[in-house]
């Protein structure tokens, strides 16, 4: 992972310009969609306030410190939907509002994480990402579903629900 301190790595970045991490320690950015932006961060969490330059759906990016993607996988209380994207990939940008919607609708069941494959090439190579966007559903740290390409919100929701309902 590029540019990391010993403690943590900035894991995922929004396609939009992101707020600088606090300088005393690096923080990983996971995007949790749909929760309203709070003005006063909780003690142990820093919430980023995104600049409002146009009308955008309400987004809260929650920063948490993870030492690596593996750490994120291990310590996640919920299954993860990981979106491997690139800034100049059209379908990936198309999915941004859809992921907001899906993250909000399924917020108790799954957590959405976005990974910029140009920043985290090792990670993208590890999972042999080819076409973008690629979505991988992780459960208990292991990939349990994988699909490529943009799809509408309803299809994405039903696919995720089907995957999560399958008994392990």
């Amino acid at each position, binding site marked *: 992972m590029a540019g990391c301190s010993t403690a943590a790595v900035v894991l995922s970045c929004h396609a*939009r310009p992101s707020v*600088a991490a606090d300088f005393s320690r690096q923080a990983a950015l996971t995007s949790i969609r749909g929760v309203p932006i709070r003005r006063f961060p909780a003690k142990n969490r820093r919430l980023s306030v995104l600049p409002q330059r146009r009308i955008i759906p309400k987004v809260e990016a929650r920063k948490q410190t993870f030492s690596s993607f593996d750490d994120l996988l291990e310590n996640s209380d919920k299954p993860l939907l990981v979106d491997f994207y690139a*800034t*100049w990939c*059209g379908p*990936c*940008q198309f999915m941004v509002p859809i992921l907001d919607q899906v993250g909000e609708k399924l917020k108790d069941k799954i957590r959405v994480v976005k990974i910029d494959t140009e920043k985290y090439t090792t990670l993208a190579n590890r999972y042999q990402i*080819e*076409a973008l966007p690629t979505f991988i559903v992780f459960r208990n740290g292991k990939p349990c579903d994988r699909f490529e390409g*943009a799809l509408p919100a309803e299809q994405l929701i039903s696919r995720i629900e089907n995957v999560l309902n399958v008994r392990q």
Partner: protein
Amino acid sequence: MSIQSSFAGVALPLPVAVVPLRRSVSLIRAKVEPSEKTVEIMRKFSEQYARRSETYFCVDKGVTSVVIKGLADHKETLGAPLCPCRHYDDKAAEAAQGFWNCPCVPMRERKECHCMLFLTPDNDFAGREQSITLDEIKVSTSNL
């Protein structure tokens, strides 16, 4: 009377910038944009190729704009418009090899464009246009 004597004992020869302990927002923009000239080249290419292949741009022109910029970006950095909707181990090698240079082999052979740039009329996302202006591109990608 020197300035120093008016203070208890600490001399401050230089103005000290008081930095608030907590800055609420700091914007770091690291993304490099392709030049307008190259974007224009790729825009013209996209229009011509859509007409030639009888395909259409996406209903959401934002997608078209982002892909055109992505092609322009690769053209500038790699010398060839490598498909922006793929992840590569070695971009330079891929650009030299050519399979994924736009128009890529899947597109040329089967009209398959997973970037959603060139869409066949039967595609759910296909619009009815085969043209896009530079302004449209600029506006759609101004937030990136």
